[in-house]
């Protein structure tokens, strides 16, 4: 007499509570994986777009946004930018800039656009920035001969070899335009070999 007692229980397929609990755990894992995957799925990376508009190893002004040509989405017409694309796989990069007041920002981005190093301008105080961008995992300590490269610079070890430096200045109107452009033009970015 094969399982006549089990028969009523097995007449219809059941959805097990264990399945639902496992599905919720699975949803959590998928949620975390997708959140970290979105940046890699983007086909509209800001760094790629800026890099395509710039020569390498030089700090250049980005064009003001217009309907015919805009380097990156939501690029404010209220700001001026200079940017430099770099590749630290062959040389360290020495970057200098000055942030004359609040509202100015200096940022170093990796190839995915993540901010690696950020400095913001201070109210009524000039902030001079000197940064040496290094290949992943490298760090010049004082005892090594390479350390003289880094003298006077803050060292930033990049997570990848490529990226961009961006200096942003808020536009405060025509009266300040020339002053802001002159300040931005002083920013520099160049490879530094031993």
């Amino acid at each position, binding site marked *: 007499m094969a399982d006549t007692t089990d028969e009523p229980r*097995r*007449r219809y*397929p059941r*959805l097990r509570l264990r399945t639902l609990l496992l599905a919720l755990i699975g949803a*959590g894992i998928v949620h975390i994986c997708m959140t970290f995957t979105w940046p890699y799925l983007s086909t509209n990376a800001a760094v790629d777009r800026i890099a395509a508009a710039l020569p390498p190893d030089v700090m250049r002004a980005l064009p003001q946004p217009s309907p015919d040509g*805009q380097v990156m989405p939501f690029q404010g017409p209220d700001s001026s930018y200079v940017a430099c694309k770099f590749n630290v796989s062959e040389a360290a990069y020495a970057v200098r800039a000055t942030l004359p007041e*609040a509202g100015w920002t200096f940022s170093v981005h990796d190839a995915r656009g993540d901010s690696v190093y950020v400095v913001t301008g201070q109210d009524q105080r000039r902030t001079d920035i000197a940064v040496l961008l290094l290949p992943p995992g490298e760090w010049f300590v004082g005892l090594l001969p390479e350390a003289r490269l880094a003298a006077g610079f803050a060292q930033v070890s990049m997570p990848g070899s490529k990226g961009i430096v961006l200096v942003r200045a808020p536009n405060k109107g025509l009266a300040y335009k020339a002053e802001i452009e002159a300040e931005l033009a002083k920013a520099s970015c160049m490879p530094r070999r031993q």
Partner: protein
Amino acid sequence: MAFDTMKAMARARLPKLPKLPPLPPIRSLPGAVQPAVSQIRAIVVGAIETILNVGVFVVVALGFGIWSSWIMVERGSSLTTRTSGAWVLWSNAGRPDADPYTRAHFARIGSLPPSSTAVHTWEARSDDDGQRLHSSCEYALQGDGLDADWWSLAVFDDRGTVIRNRADRYAYGASTIALGPDGSYIVTLARDARPGNWLPTGGAGRFVLVMTRPAPRPNATAAEIQAATRGLPAIRRIACR
């Protein structure tokens, strides 16, 4: 009466069919057949149950996982954003220690926002009633209390491109807006020219407003942080075509 008579005559003409014995219930099938039927039923039910459970697992794990991640990255949550009316601010935008949702949000958009420690970039995609901003409608933005040296209010289409217009006007700022005597301001968003502060939205379809202003000092008091949201304009729909 005639109909009843005809019915009786028809019944009388029909041959009498023998009564069939009732079908035996499944439980009373011969002993060799019953276990086989039960086994087949158990196998079928088991297979359907497996398919159902695997299906529910896949749909819930993938569907809910991807959907919830998308919502957190696209719209943000109280963990990652601050809101004031229709305006949304990603609190950790442009910072090296930004959370994964903020990083994914800006990577997906393809923009490099300024650090939120220096600049607050507020976005509005809907009016104060929660309706999506659209160029077929006209809006009035009304606010006051913007006392910073610089700030700007810009309008972009849904893809983040400035909207083409004959006036080449894409934003208002501290130096270009016309303020009222009491420091308040009204900006009209419309396809066609309007008196006063007018931002053209012609032909954009859905559009996005972006307001950029200085962030409060790092050691700001609670009152200063609260004041940082002052001046964000109310967004009121006037009419739609």
